């Protein structure tokens, strides 16, 4: 130790600085890692990175403690013979043995019934590779975390505006004047969101947060609107109602850029009832939305083909076509729908005074209307019309899981997308902006197979494992209309489950419904803890055996970097590297880190060698792909094509000669091309020299109105971001949903739902958004369970994986249940007391904390702070397990059985989005016992071989030189 005041950082030791990309969360900031004598001295935000511009977050700055955590797995492990799953009893094995085990097992499955291999991945960001592997293997049973995360957000918006929040788009806070944030605590876009909000506030914008809880971002909102959980749909519908009633919508925008003026067939006897009337215009077939619909021209007072030059279509009214067909513009249908959704009605549901709802609508509408932005940027629309300027209405929204994680979220988010559309804020300055590769056609092109015949032994899957159904015939069901996928995605139960339903995989596999699988490979997901609902039961299922004493889920492989709760349930454990030790890509084929102004992708380049025997999962997949001779990984002779993952990334093309690969930057022999071009042997080098990021800035005239921007759409087509350069009109009225409804009503010729699902499809596939109570709430005795229970992400912790971090866990060591003090008064308990929180599914004992910053009908806690005893290399008595708790024990992955005894997933009936925030609870005082600990408790598990399990009393990290402890 030297005395400070010498002013200079001690530069002794060998100092190196390397750029890479953070992965302490999915935000993926650019970081600069400084090493001293080969150890991490510090990690800082890379000032030259477009995403985070030099800032870093609490997690990112704690990367040192992640890298050197004692919870690191360092050797491949095999469950000890005779040990139960969950015991965490392993012996270490060599990689050779691990590969041999997997090869034998997987080759056999692939040669017989590939769907018996299921690959599900959690908070990863390499779906380009994992998805490719699954497809090549031939299994449909693949998905990432999206289904339990925020698929409602993706689907609700993409099926409406062709893009979405999440990684695909966001609020343009540089230019917005009013910013409304709903149900967001931390978001995927952590650092950029923080940068943007602060700037927005400094520029004098008004920030409104709609959230039952006031923490984090909501804390600095100019106005906080507490709302009852699960009721945003009602609020948004009422806002739409008031906006239209006052004439505050952007008529030109709605007319030109949405299907609001398109005429809907209202002839009930017609099989096209509720569909748009088609005009006879020659239309090229494709997965876009063809322009063969009609408007009602107010000048000529007759129907004309949409976007006919010089016509002024009506948005409201009722008309009759020449053949007598009654029609209405879909906007009129929206108006009709919204009639009952008055602010007074919404007040009763949301708890927000009608006056406030009206005022909000007026603030939004008047700001949008009167503070128009006009940028001197000329552009041409897809219909060929030149525009002198880009205009925008400066009202921006952002929403995340507070809307998404409810079983009525899809329709709430549709209502939000429509509100944004009415205000004229889609891909315009000051509103919502897309990020490449969005916008995409509604729905996007990718489709899953529609029949089990797509699955054949030793053959890649014929189609994508995940896709975007446009009509019932796109569903992935068998001849009996039954699900083909283990998670029942794309079945009649959850037709638009575009991200799968990972939260049901274990339960379904355990039950053998729709069939039994053999091997479950879980990568980077803690399914024995926080990414499972009904966690206690799921843990039992993972270890459950049939009459013959065989595991119901025969084989479980887990690839993790840490000793998580899930690892304990594995038969085979693959120790992954950390983000500082591996190559990675943030690919345009997955979810890149694009900016509003153009595509951005990024890479990770190791700054440290792997610890112990750790091996990047990417390398495992390349190795396995080669061993199993999956076509993408071997040449015609069956010889391995790629040396390793970096080699794969450099040379892989989606199709031979396609010029499309994992990375978009510096393609072509000498790196002179982008997006598309031959493999460049020096591509990694070029990323390395450029802060590990490739940022293509679109010409200004391509940066806005991209759904209809000729320049952009053609650019995207040329660079193969999309196949079609067709307009992407906003679906205020969703024909896709109506199509499903018609099928449910038996009015179509294609696939139709089984009878017991007809009613459900008919109800929830409403072409216009509507409000209903979340499904679980509908099945709950609300007198008995009057409170909503939700979780939030703390900014300084990532899911369950940061308790192994000695610095971060000091900030969140355990969690309380936050609630209004009125609950304590009613229940006779005090701040800090132990309470029971009970849902219809079970109960959890925890400590309460009173708060004035929570809607009184809601209780909440930080997500996944509580841990199972002994996991994460924590001492068995660590506060995480003794005082912390996991709310997931109270949340069921399935709804109560319906009349026929059938149990649906606890999910949105349209998208299969997990209904995390629908659970209803009651809270009551826990009688005092001597040694109070949270309940349920689980038997402590011991460290695994290869884990540094010395229990240090204290430590003092000093990079490179002397060590404490």
């Amino acid at each position: 130790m030297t005395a400070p005041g010498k002013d200079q950082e001690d530069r002794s030791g060998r100092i190196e600085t390397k750029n890479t990309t953070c992965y302490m969360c999915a935000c993926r900031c650019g970081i600069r890692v400084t090493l001293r004598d080969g150890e991490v001295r510090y990690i800082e935000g890379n000032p030259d990175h477009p995403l985070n511009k030099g800032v870093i977050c609490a997690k990112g700055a704690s990367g040192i403690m992640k890298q050197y955590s004692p919870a690191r797995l360092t050797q491949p492990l095999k469950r000890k013979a005779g040990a139960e799953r969950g015991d965490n009893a392993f012996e270490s094995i060599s990689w050779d043995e691990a590969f041999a085990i997997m090869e034998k097992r997987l080759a056999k499955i692939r040669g017989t019934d590939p769907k018996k291999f299921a690959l599900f991945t959690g908070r990863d960001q390499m779906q380009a590779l994992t998805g490719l592997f699954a497809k090549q293997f031939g299994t449909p049973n693949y998905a990432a975390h999206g289904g339990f995360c925020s698929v409602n957000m993706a689907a609700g918006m993409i099926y409406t505006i062709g893009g979405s929040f999440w990684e695909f788009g966001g609020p343009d806070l540089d230019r917005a004047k009013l910013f409304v944030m709903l149900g967001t605590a931390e978001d995927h876009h952590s650092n950029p969101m923080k940068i943007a909000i602060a700037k927005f506030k400094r520029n004098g914008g008004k920030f409104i947060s709609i959230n039952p809880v006031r923490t984090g971002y909501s804390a600095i909102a100019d106005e906080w609107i507490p709302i009852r959980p699960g009721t945003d749909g009602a609020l948004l519908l009422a806002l739409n109602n008031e906006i239209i009633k006052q004439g505050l919508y952007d008529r030109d925008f709605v007319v030109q850029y949405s299907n609001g003026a398109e005429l809907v067939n209202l002839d009930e006897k017609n099989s096209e009832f509720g569909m748009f009337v088609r005009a006879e215009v020659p239309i090229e077939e494709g997965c876009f939305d063809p322009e063969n619909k009609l408007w009602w021209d107010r000048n000529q007072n007759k129907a004309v083909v949409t976007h006919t030059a010089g016509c002024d279509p009506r948005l409201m009214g009722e008309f009759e076509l020449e053949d007598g067909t009654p029609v209405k513009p879909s906007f009129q249908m929206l108006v009709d729908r919204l009639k009952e959704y008055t602010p007074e009605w919404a007040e009763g549901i949301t708890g927000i005074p009608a006056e406030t709802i009206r005022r909000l609508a007026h603030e939004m509408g008047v700001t949008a209307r009167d503070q128009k932005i006009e940028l001197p940027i000329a552009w041409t629309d897809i219909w060929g019309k030149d525009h002198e300027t880009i205009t925008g209405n400066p009202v921006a929204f952002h929403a995340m899981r507070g809307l998404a994680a409810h079983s009525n979220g899809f329709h709430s988010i549709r209502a939000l997308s429509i509100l944004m559309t009415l205000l004229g804020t889609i891909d315009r300055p000051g509103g919502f902006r897309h990020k490449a590769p969005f916008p995409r056609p509604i729905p996007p092109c990718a489709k899953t197979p529609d029949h089990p015949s797509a699955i054949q032994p030793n053959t890649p899957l014929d189609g994508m494992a995940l896709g975007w159904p446009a009509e019932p015939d796109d569903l992935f069901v068998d001849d009996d209309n039954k699900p083909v996928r283990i998670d029942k995605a794309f079945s009649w139960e959850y037709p638009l489950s575009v991200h799968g339903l990972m939260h049901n995989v274990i339960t379904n596999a355990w039950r053998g419904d729709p069939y039994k699988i053999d091997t479950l490979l879980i990568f980077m997901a803690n399914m024995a803890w926080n990414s499972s609902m009904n966690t206690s039961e799921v843990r039992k299922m993972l270890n459950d055996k049939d009459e013959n004493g065989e595991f119901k889920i025969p084989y479980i492989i887990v690839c993790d970097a840490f000793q998580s709760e899930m690892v304990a349930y594995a038969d085979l454990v693959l120790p992954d590297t950390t983000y500082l030790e591996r190559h990675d890509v943030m690919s345009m084929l997955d979810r890149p880190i694009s900016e509003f102004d153009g595509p951005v992708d990024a890479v990770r380049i190791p700054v440290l060698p792997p610890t112990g025997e750790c091996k990047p999962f990417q390398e495992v997949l390349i190795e396995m792909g080669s061993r199993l001779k999956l076509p993408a990984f071997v040449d015609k002779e069956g010889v391995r094509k790629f040396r390793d993952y970096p080699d794969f990334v450099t040379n892989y093309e989606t199709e031979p000669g396609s010029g499309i690969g994992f990375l978009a930057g510096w393609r072509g022999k000498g790196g002179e091309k982008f997006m598309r071009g031959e493999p460049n042997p020096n591509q990694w080098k070029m990323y390395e020299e450029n802060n590990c990021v490739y940022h293509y800035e679109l010409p200004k005239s391509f940066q806005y109105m991209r759904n209809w921007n000729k320049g952009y759409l053609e650019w995207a087509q040329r660079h193969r971001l999309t196949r079609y350069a067709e307009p992407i009109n906003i679906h205020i009225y969703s024909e896709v949903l109506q199509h499903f409804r018609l099928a449910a009503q038996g009015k179509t010729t294609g696939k139709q739902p089984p009878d017991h699902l007809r009613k459900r499809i008919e109800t929830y596939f409403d072409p216009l958004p509507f409000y209903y109570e979340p499904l679980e709430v509908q099945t709950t005795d609300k007198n008995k369970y009057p409170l909503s229970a939700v979780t939030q992400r703390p900014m300084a912790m990532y899911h369950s994986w940061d308790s192994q971090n000695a610095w971060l866990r000091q900030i969140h060591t355990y969690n309380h249940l936050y609630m209004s003090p009125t609950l304590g008064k009613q229940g006779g308990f005090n701040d800090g007391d132990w309470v029971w929180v009970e849902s219809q599914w079970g109960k959890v004992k925890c400590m309460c904390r009173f708060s004035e910053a929570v809607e009184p009908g809601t209780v909440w806690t930080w997500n996944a702070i509580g841990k199972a005893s002994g996991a994460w290399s924590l001492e068995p008595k660590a506060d995480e397990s003794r005082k912390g708790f996991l709310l997931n024990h109270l949340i069921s992955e399935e709804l109560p059985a319906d009349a026929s005894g059938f149990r649906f997933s606890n999910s949105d009936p349209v998208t299969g989005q997990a209904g995390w925030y629908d659970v209803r609870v009651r809270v009551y005082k826990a009688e005092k016992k001597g040694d109070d600990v949270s309940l349920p408790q689980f038997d402590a598990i011991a460290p695994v071989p290869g884990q540094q399990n010395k229990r240090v009393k204290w430590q003092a990290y000093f990079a490179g030189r002397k060590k404490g402890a």
Partner: protein
Amino acid sequence: MHPAFSVIFLTTLIGVGQGLFLAIYTGEVYGTLDLLPAQSHNFYVTGSMLALIFLVAGLVASFFHLGHPERAWRSASQWRTSWLSREVIVLPAVIGAILVYGLVHLLGLKLTLFGFNTGLDNDLSLILGSGGTLVTFLLFLCTGMIYACIKFLKEWASPLTVINYTLLGLASGFLLAAALAAILAPALVQFYVVWTIIITISGLVTRIASLVRNARLKPQSNLKTAIGIRHGKIQQRSQGQMGGSFNTREFFHGAPDWFFRNIKWVFLVLVFVVPVILISLAMGNSGFLILVVAFVTQYIGLIAERWFFFAQANHPQNLYYQTVG
């Protein structure tokens, strides 16, 4: 504040030492003035020794408070501004003075050695003792001021802190002197006992005064000024860390509520009531045992008193550390 036992022992032990020295020196002065029978050197030597033992024990205890005792010497450097530094200088001076004083008695040294003849047997020790008295009082002042000068701790920031500390040190020292006298100078017992009672009762008065004062204290800082937000209802939701920090360990007593509430009565009884009753009994006869019991009781009481002194002090920094969340 968190009561640190090293500091409790430091302050109580040196208090006894200082008080004891002052007691025997007072006895000597009285003797010189013929108000009391003069005593043998033995009494003064033993008394000084005993005082030194207490002082050195206190000094040793203080080292336990330091993270780096090997650097303790550095702490004498800031006497211009720091009462702690001053204490660090004065404490050895007191030890030195008492040591010399004791040596003078041990060797029977007189001023005649230096060519002066005062006709007094103990002229040299009288002069040195008066110097010792000065530094001893200075030490009381320094030690007291270490606490009293911290304006943020309003319970301490009062002359009463110095006065109480001085009186309690004196009381315990005089009481120990009485016990010592019971063996070596029975004639002085009565004298010491009376003074002990007087000082103890004065201490009681000033200690109660400080209790009353402290009970009436209005904190100068509150959450409004601490975070700069003017609002009647502010509550901390999180202090930023959950497993505690230096700020939650050093500035909170951490004892159960009932303990804190009762300790005040405990020390009032042990420091004041019991000793006064016991020594009143001892007044007539030279009850060594009673006096020792009284001293021990009072000393235990003083430890409780110091504990309470710390625990009661409410540091404004605590405003920032109220809620784990």
